């Protein structure tokens, strides 16, 4: 146990007294009975009153108090009495007395002379003689009375006031009785639970101080994950629930062949322009391409086949060999479908990926040169546009977009192609949320996929739904080196799919 403080003793004394006698009429005299200063007692009284353990009534009194000068006189006697006491029977010189009495000398001389307590030797005004044997020092008596708080005659007060020996002072003390919450021993309120409490068993008697729930907790040091990665994870979970397998997309450099040609995207297509695509200086061209397949792709571009009339242009191998940073993850989907076509017998697949793609575009608040593409596809016999619509509704409703509409669109490698629109309750309008379609036969048949196998696919960016979800209007606050750490730290939980 902690050592008891003097205040604890005072408190114990006061409470014991109240318990036995019921009241304390005057805190000042009680303080002196305890042998402590009134100030010390006052602190305890205030604390006990606040908890309504004692009831205190203020006693206010204006009293005369002695000045410092007067306190000296009360202790050592009035100047005149001091003077008289200082004079030996043979008398003393003024200088000797002055040296002995100091400041009191002048006052003492005047008052003693007035009282006719002293006299001077004839002809020698310097030698002071004592004229009385004993003096009664009334002033000292009165001052002592005042000091004790006793009553003195008004005449005396006036006299002391004139001599600037007393001043008026307001003093407060208390009368005390038991309060409504009176206890003989007050419990100390705990602010926390300590090992010591548990070990000693003190916890049984613990009473807690009220807690300030308006105050914040301590800031904690913790780690954070990027909001975009959180949304990615949520979307991945949706794909996996729907039976989709992730494609290996860790391949940013791609040949034009896999990025464009294999998708039946003609070599003069504007997307293959240097204004839209990052081409490479190193490695400038791809080292190898599947020759048999390449020949089929060339034919279907140039002169068609598989029921198509083709584009009717001179297909150039150089153009197909040009390396680039992939403009869409569909380059990987194409590789996966080609691989699937080589596996016999055919087995249906659901594939997805979420990874980076690159566009050589001007960067602004909503566009970056690199962003994440979400892509999903299903490959099986007899898939229909109705199936695509059904899957899209499942997928997007998991993202909280249940009102969908589809608009005919153009895309070189899908036919039919559909833009996906979702009704945005906040914006009160239909907004485009993705693209979709069925891969063209000119893309699938040269790979060697069986006739009748269709691929339904869709794609969207990861950034756009994330920005809408978190109300971020500048993409650079979310992604890239200019990200705001405070945004990452204050980001709410991603609740997609919950």
């Amino acid at each position: 146990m902690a050592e008891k403080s003097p205040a604890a003793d005072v408190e114990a004394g006061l409470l014991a007294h109240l318990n036995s006698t019921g009241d304390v009429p005057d805190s000042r005299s009680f303080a002196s009975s305890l042998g402590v200063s009134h100030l010390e007692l006052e602190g305890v009284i205030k604390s006990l009153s606040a908890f309504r353990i004692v009831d205190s009534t203020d006693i206010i009194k204006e009293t005369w108090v002695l000045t410092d000068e007067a306190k000296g006189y009360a202790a050592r006697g009035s100047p005149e009495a001091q003077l008289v006491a200082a004079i030996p029977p043979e008398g003393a010189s003024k200088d000797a007395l002055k040296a002995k009495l100091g400041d009191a000398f002048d006052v003492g001389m005047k008052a003693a002379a007035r009282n006719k307590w002293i006299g001077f030797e004839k002809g020698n005004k310097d030698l002071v003689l004592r004229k009385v044997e004993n003096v009664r020092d009334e002033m000292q008596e009165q001052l002592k009375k005042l000091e004790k708080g006793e009553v003195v005659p008004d005449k005396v007060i006036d006299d002391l006031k004139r001599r600037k020996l007393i001043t008026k002072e307001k003093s407060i003390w208390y009368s005390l009785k038991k309060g409504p919450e009176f206890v003989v021993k007050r419990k100390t309120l705990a602010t926390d639970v300590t090992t010591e409490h548990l070990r000693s068993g003190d916890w049984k008697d613990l009473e807690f101080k009220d807690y300030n729930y308006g105050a914040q907790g301590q800031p904690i040091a913790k780690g954070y994950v990027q909001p975009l990665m959180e949304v990615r994870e949520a979307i991945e979970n949706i794909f996996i629930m729907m039976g989709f397998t992730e494609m290996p997309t860790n391949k940013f450099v791609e040949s034009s062949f896999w990025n464009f040609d294999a998708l039946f995207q003609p070599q003069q297509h504007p997307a293959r322009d240097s204004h839209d695509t990052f081409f490479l200086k190193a490695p400038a061209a791809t080292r190898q391409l599947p020759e048999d397949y390449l020949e089929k792709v060339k034919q279907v571009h140039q002169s068609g086949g598989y029921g198509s009339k083709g584009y009717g242009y001179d297909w150039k191998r150089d153009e197909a060999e040009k390396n680039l940073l992939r403009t869409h993850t569909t380059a990987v989907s194409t590789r996966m479908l080609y691989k699937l076509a080589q596996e016999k017998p055919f087995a249906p697949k659901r594939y997805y990926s979420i990874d980076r793609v690159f566009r050589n575009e001007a960067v602004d608040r909503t566009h970056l040169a690199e962003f994440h593409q979400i892509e999903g596809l299903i490959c099986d016999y007899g898939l229909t546009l109705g199936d695509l619509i059904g899957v899209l509704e499942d997928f997007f409703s998991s993202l909280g977009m249940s009102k969908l509409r589809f608009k005919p669109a153009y895309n070189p490698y899908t036919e039919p192609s559909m833009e996906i629109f979702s009704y945005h309750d906040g914006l009160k309008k239909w907004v485009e949320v993705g693209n979709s379609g069925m891969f063209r036969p000119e893309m699938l048949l040269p790979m060697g996929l069986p006739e009748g196998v269709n691929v339904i696919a869709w794609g969207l960016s990861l950034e756009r739904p994330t920005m809408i979800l978190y109300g971020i209007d500048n993409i650079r606050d979310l992604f890239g080196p200019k990200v705001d750490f405070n945004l990452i730290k204050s980001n709410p939980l991603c609740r997609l799919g919950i």
Partner: protein
Amino acid sequence: MPTVSVGRDRLFAALGRTYTQEDFEALCFEFGIELDDVTTEKAIMRKEKHLEDDGEVEGDDEVIYKIEVAANRYDLLCLEGLARALRVFTGTEANPVFRISSIPRGSMLQMHVKPQTSQIRPHVVCAVLRGVTFDEARYNSFIDLQDKLHQNICRKRTLVAIGTHDLDTLVAPFSYEALPPHEINFVPLKQEESFRADKLMEFYKSDMKLKKFLHIIENSPVYPVIYDSNRTVLSLPPIINGAHSAITLTTRNVFIECTATDLTKAKIVLNTMVTMFSEYCENKFEVEPVEVIHHDGSKTVYPDLSCYKMEAPLSDILGPIGISLDEKQVVCLLNKMQLQAESHSSKGEHRISVSVPPTRSDILHARDLVEDVAIAYGYNNVPKSKPKCMTIGGRQPLNRFSDKIRAEVARAGYMEVLTFILSSHEENFDMLNRTDDKSKAVIIANPRTSEFEVVRTSLMSCLLKTLKHNIDHPRPIKIFEVGDVMTLDPSCDVGASNNRRLAALYCNRVSGFEEIMGLVDSIVKIVRAPHVKFGEKYYVPTDEPEFFPKRQCKIVTSDGKQVGYLGIVHAEVLRKFGIPDPCTFVEMDIEALL
């Protein structure tokens, strides 16, 4: 996607009815075009001149619809084609039938092709529109369509260039030649005086519109040029026409020539021009042919307005949509899309024959018919269904592993950041005190700005840059990223491969070297044997320029393979990135830990 601007009132007049904007938008949505913007000529002029809303400008207050159309629908690039397609789609008009006027072969206009043209722009195709009635709006639309075609299918005139002429100012036969520039002299359109072709090219270098086409022929020893029989220059393709044969509002007979490096596209462009504007001919939709005589003597008559015949079983058209209709309904839907169709049965199977008109060059395969039937049926009317195949979902092991590492580092109190893969050469090398030995980095050939010069070979500059942008954040700053870097890799088909990395950066008033080592220790602990073997000591001192000497090391597995490195970032590097406080950086190869 190309955008076509058309006057709303003219469009509605051509459609034979008016629409509220909402109804028109709904029609566009259904048909697969989009009303992108509603504006006025005045508003466009103000925007161009950067004027406030009340600024005084020329131009009128007619409402203009800007309509976005599919990139392969060249027949929708002008009001005439757009209105026609919508009239047929809404059933207010039958499909137009385009005809070649029947004139004897001997009296056809001729275009003689000289052999030198094969050096620069080998193909030419031509046609004539007779008895055309222009007014200002039609004339503007005629010019705009050429512009739109030039921008889109013609790939900024590289593949095809169109020249249109007042035939009555010219004398056939014509010749398509390729001559040295100094031998060509003519007065170009909008000019008064004659220019020699090489001087003209010089002159156009300051022309905002034309200068971007000069490169197509500039460096060729011969320029393509078309003459009439009086040696009047019709055009210097693909740059400019001659002033002599310029079209005016009173022009009645129009001669159209398209020169090209791609014959298929030249034919599409010519067909688009004549099918759109034969609407204003005396004999509506009739086009006069021109005989092109090649330098080998062979002859071809253009334009070819014949329909492309396709045939497919009904089930092939409806199957991919997932609806059932009878053959009559399908024929009807195809007709709405300007595809003339009929049905017949053979061996108990319903088959649909389609005549694809010259306006629909986008139809390549029966699958294109599927789309048109689906559009005409209404995408939003197609009943939804569910794919039947059962498959098991799953993730790529590397990605799943990466996520586990990410979670581990985040649990260790680090904040995840996500940076760009593209970076400047300086950031990836010089600013890290590293030198480019040209054996590692993937280099971009056509970066728009210096930010996109190389693919990062390490995550170090990315994290330092991110730290710099948040330099006022309270210390300690602990950030990390898991992401891919790329390096040249001859064993990979494309010549470069990705590598998954973890990088972490600690920044405080003191370096945090041991703090980072603690992070590495915890990772080593969770990936350890039997999967990855680390010996007792896996830190081996190094001497790399990006770190302070004696405060850097590599992380090695028990067989001595390096899987990472760390160190206190060198003061010079910190200075270059503008970071005032000490930092420790670590980077690890995650694939090596898998």
